Structure formats: structure tokens, C-alpha cells
């Protein structure tokens, strides 16, 4: 598969503590990849590092290939022609990502002038078209409004309009719906899927919510403690997760209908990045772990049907029904 962007052995450390341990990830043109993990798993840092958006104290190594260009070694001026133009990013909290002192027209216009070289009337017409596209009603009039005059859901639509201004080939959406109510979240997810169909851009959806990811993603990568532990199609993952952590995450979600069962939990907590256990980082919390897991670090490798897993069991987990009972969560803390 020809990939549009590929991360190769991307490693990030802050003050000598490694938080991202060699991420390999490829995004094809037009595909939708979900990046799932709990807080601190490195899902946001991965893309902030790839786009050169981390603070100076971060040490980044590896390669981020866009065509034959390695973004990690590019000059700031070349990088700024990629960011927003070819790869755009939107964040969780639209209210703090927008400038409260500028009208929506000015903010979208800025992106249009910068990335597409538009000016004057062309900016206004294009800004209006973008607002229409993202479903802000009465675009003509609302262009002159400030961010505080919009609701949270509408501000996120405006962020998406700004991100689309450069006609990017790849949009990185970092928890784009986490701050929104569930009915509005559904609208924004629909919008992202619609925009993607219309423009053919690729989308990376970063989220802690497996439900959100499964709504619109083709492929999902699950991250734990700075590594990708499983990569599979959304159907494969939700049907039968191969990594014990992915399986635990899915089991932690209460069902919305059917009989209510006690939730399957993952005991313990996420390890401190400075004190990762030797061997598999998940071993201390893993119900399937055996002696080798505590000494040997599993590498992400293929187990067939296009899926990858980083586990010494290679996805050969016992059936859920006979899985060992996880420790009583109360006793593991």
C-alpha cells in the first residue's frame, strides 16, 4: 500500500524520560485511522512531534516521511508550508484554539491567504463556502461574528472550516468531540465523515473513546505507555481484540442494552513513563501474562489478515469466556 505519511521509529523524550518508544505508523491517502489510548499513552504527542509542534526541550528522533521529505529535518519555513496546507490539525477545545479577538472571517481568511494565496472578495466567498460546508447556518451573516457568539459545537465546526481552508490531504483531529455533548458529538463526527467523502482527504482521529473511533474509522491503532500495541481494522478489533489491553479496554465499556454484566476491568494503573517495567509495559496489569512477559519486550508484528500486535501470545488469547478472572480491582491498588 502506498502511504501518504509514514512515521518510522518516531521517538520522543522529555528531560531524559522517553515517552514515545519508536512509533511506526503509515497513513494511506483518503483513509481514516483511529488512534486510541488512555491519557499519557502518547497518542497526541505522536502527532505533535511529527508536525514539529512540541516545545524545544523535547528530543525527537526517527523519521516522518511525507513523500521523500523527512519533516523532522526540514527547516521551520518549509515545515510551515506543510502544516495547515498539506497536514492540518484540530484540537479538543475549540474555544481556546480560536482567537477571541478576531471575527471568524478574519481567522478563516488568514488561513486562506496564507495557504491558498487568496485575497479580497475571493477570501470572503471561499470563507462563506467553507462555513456552508461545515454546516454553520446563515454563513453570510455569521462570518462577522466572534467565537464567543457561537456554541461549542459551532466553534468546533469553525475550527474544521479553518483546517479545511488549506485543502489538506490529511487532517489530524485530536479528541475533536470530547468537550461536546453527545448529540452534538454525533453531528461533528458526521460532519468529519462527510467532509472526508467530499474532499478525499485522509483523517487521523485521536480519541480515548472507542465508541467514537468505531463510528468513522476503517483502521484503529491502540496505544499503551508510548507504544502501539495493536493495529487492526475496526471490525477485527471490536469483534475480537488480539492484545489483552485492547480487549480490556473494550470490556471496560458498559453495554447500552441487553443484560447488564459486571464490567471487566484492567487492574492497577498506567505506569509512570520514567519507571516502565522491564519486558512488556502492560505485563503487571495483564491477566494473561506469564514469566517471559516480565523480561522480554514484545515487538509489533503481523499476525495475518493485516493486523499487527505487540504481545508474546501473538493474539492467541484464550476465549473470553474462559479467560482468567481479572484481579479484584480493589485489591490491586
Amino acid at each position, binding site marked *: 500500500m502506498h502511504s501518504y505519511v509514514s512515521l518510522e521509529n518516531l521517538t520522543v523524550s522529555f528531560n531524559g524520560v522517553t515517552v514515545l518508544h519508536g512509533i511506526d505508523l503509515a497513513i494511506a491517502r483518503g483513509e481514516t485511522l483511529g488512534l486510541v489510548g488512555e491519557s499519557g499513552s502518547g497518542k497526541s504527542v505522536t502527532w505533535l512531534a511529527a508536525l514539529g509542534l512540541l516545545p524545544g526541550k523535547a528530543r525527537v528522533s526517527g523519521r516522518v516521511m511525507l513523500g521523500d521529505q523527512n519533516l523532522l529535518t526540514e527547516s521551520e519555513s518549509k515545515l510551515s508550508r506543510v502544516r495547515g496546507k498539506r497536514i492540518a490539525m484540530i484540537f479538543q477545545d475549540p474555544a481556546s484554539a480560536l482567537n477571541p479577538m478576531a471575527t471568524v472571517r478574519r481567522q478563516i481568511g488568514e488561513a486562506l491567504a496564507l495557504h491558498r494565496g487568496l485575497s479580497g472578495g475571493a477570501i470572503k466567498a471561499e470563507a462563506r463556502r467553507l462555513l456552508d460546508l461545515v454546516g454553520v447556518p446563515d454563513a453570510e451573516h455569521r462570518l462577522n461574528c466572534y467565537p464567543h457568539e457561537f456554541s461549542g459545537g459551532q466553534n468546533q465546526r469553525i475550527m474544521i472550516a479553518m483546517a479545511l481552508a488549506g485543502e489538506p490531504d490529511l487532517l489530524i483531529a485530536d479528541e475533536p468531540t470530547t468537550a461536546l455533548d453527545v448529540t452534538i458529538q*454525533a*453531528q461533528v463526527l458526521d460532519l468529519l465523515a462527510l467532509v472526508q467523502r467530499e474532499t478525499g482527504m485522509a483523517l487521523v482521529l485521536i480519541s480515548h473513546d472507542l*465508541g467514537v473511533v468505531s463510528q468513522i474509522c476503517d483502521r484503529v491503532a491502540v496505544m499503551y505507555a508510548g507504544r502501539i500495541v495493536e493495529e487492526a481494522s475496526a471490525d477485527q478489533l471490536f469483534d475480537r481484540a488480539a492484545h489483552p489491553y485492547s480487549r480490556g479496554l473494550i470490556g471496560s*465499556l458498559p453495554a447500552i442494552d441487553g443484560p447488564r454484566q459486571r464490567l471487566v476491568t484492567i487492574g492497577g494503573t498506567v505506569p509512570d513513563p520514567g519507571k516502565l517495567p522491564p519486558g512488556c509495559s502492560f505485563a503487571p496489569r495483564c491477566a494473561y501474562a506469564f514469566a517471559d512477559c516480565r523480561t522480554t519486550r514484545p515487538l509489533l508484528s503481523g499476525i495475518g489478515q493485516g493486523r499487527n500486535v505487540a504481545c508474546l501470545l501473538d493474539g492467541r488469547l484464550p476465549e473470553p469466556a474462559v479467560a482468567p478472572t481479572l484481579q479484584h480491582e480493589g485489591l490491586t491498588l
Partner: protein
Amino acid sequence: MSQPLLQAVGLARVYEGNHGFFSRAAGVRAVDDVTLTVGRGETLGIVGESGSGKSTTGRLVLGLETPDAGQVHFDGEPMPAHGTPEWRRWRIRMQMIYQDPLGALDRRMRITDQIREPLDIHALGDQSERDGRVGELLRAVGLSEDLAKRYPHQLSGGQRQRAVLARALATKPSLLVCDEPVSALDVSIQAQVVNLLSDLQAELGLAMLFISHDLRVVRQVSRRIAVMYLGRIVEEGDADDLFSQPVHPYTRALVSAAPVPGRKSSDRIRLQGEPPNPANRPGGCAFHPRCPVAIARCKTELPLLADLGAKRFAACHLAVPAASSAPIRTAGTLSAAGATVTTDAGMFAK
């Protein structure tokens, strides 16, 4: 005992809006005519989006705020006024848990001291009894003695919420109001705390009012669930079937919007429009501007919560008793009501 533990009737809370220079102050009806009952050892879940008044309802039933209308009865007696010594004594038996455990804990006190504090304040037991009780509570919520000697910032989010829970349980309350208790926690930790809450409830016979925006979590811990929209309860029913057979169009949309792993979004009901501003509540049924099946009557007449049988209540003009198999969905029901259908009901069922 037949008497419910908590009974709230016709609760309303109006917040004064901003006074404009030329305009009249507009009151915000955060909670409007809310009636609810929680039996001993029972959990009532309240779900709703932001601005639905679910948190205010929680504060009203604890007496943390004084209702502008309606009464709260606890154990058959009316709630004493906020801040009075009588009310303080009542609070021994009803406790609250908030979303943010770090904000709820005192950062400069060790966990053990915080868990012990309610016992000191209410002068429950002598010194050694209090020590014993703290140990008991720590074991009940699964915190080690070693962790209990630490300060809040030295604990993880899940551990902090356990500490908050231990403190809330210190006085052996009979009612616990939980306002988004797991929303700030990671999925795997969330499941631990949800299981812990269920266990404690079963062991201690606690009654709970469990407030959350997360339908799945609410269903997991509740026996009955009330759905709130703009300050009013729009549907109430058994946790087992409320989300599988929702009656109110808002509940249907909410269930349909809740992301379910492994389900694609194509068959979702899409609500148009933004959640309305509580300060500018639409007339008639507050949901009508977003409702895909609204009829003319919905714009003018406020639907009241009606008993549909089978322990289901809904506030919708189009809701029919549970006996008929497909409430709202069929066009026949709509025309039987003699109403103009503004949106194709078939689209809604899609």
C-alpha cells in the same frame, strides 16, 4: 417500610440572569417541576446533556440550594433550611461525590485525615472507633494503608476518587448523590470505580442518585433512569428497557447518538440544531425545535410527564401507552392524534 427514602416534588430553581442596561433581567429556569423518588437501597440515574439541570437537581435534593418551588422530603420529613444546625445533622446521612476528585480533596491534608474528618466534625465515636472506621473504609474502597498516608497529588485519578468515596461513606450515609463521578477518569479506571460503586451499594444498602451524561455508565449502575432536557424530566423508566425501547424522541436521539463500539454511524438519528439556551427556552415542548416528529401542538402546549404503564413515564404529546407496540414510530399513531405531521415519521424511525 413503604416510605421512599427521598422524595422530591415539583422542584424548581430559577437563576437570575444578567441585568442588561435596558433589558429586564431574564430568569434561567435551570430546574422546572422535577418530581423524583428514590427508594432505600435503590439507584436512580439522571442523564442529560449540559444545561439539562441534572447537577442542579442533585444540589437541590441535598439542600445545598434552596428550591424556588417544591419540597424535598428525606425519610418522610421535610428538608430543614440550608445551613441550619438541623440541616447539618441531616447531612450525616446524605453525601455527595463530584466529578473532579482533586478539587474535592484538601491538597494539604493526608488522605487518612480527610477520611477521618467527617467523623471528627460530627463527633461520631471515640478516637479508637474513628481509627477503626478509617481502616474499614480504606479496605472497602481498596486503598492501602500506605497510600492513605499520602497527599492527594501523590495519588492517581482513580485512587483519588476512591478516597473521596471513602470520605463520603465515613458517616454511613443512606443516600449518596454522585455527580459525574467517573467522567474525569480513563476508561479502564472508570470501570474499576463503577464496579466499586455497585459493590458498595449492594453491601451497604446505599441509595444513590447517579448523575451523568454517559448513558452506558448510568445504565450500568441504576435501577431506574430519568432523562432530563432543559430542566425537565422528559422520560423515566426501568434501566433495563429505557434505552432499548425509548419512547421520547429526545431519548431516542440520545441513545442513537451514543457511540457504540463496533457500530458504524450510518443508521443514526441526526438531531438538527444546537441545544437551546436555558435562558431562552422555547415555548410548548422545549424539545420541539429539534424534534424530528414535532406537530403543531408541540409548539404551544407543554407536555406533562404521563404514566404509560410498565413503569414508564414520558412527557411527549405523541407518546402512547406501552401496550401499543410501536409508540411514535408509526404514521397511524400520528394521524390518530389528529395532528399535522411536519416531518415524515418514517425518517425518524430510520
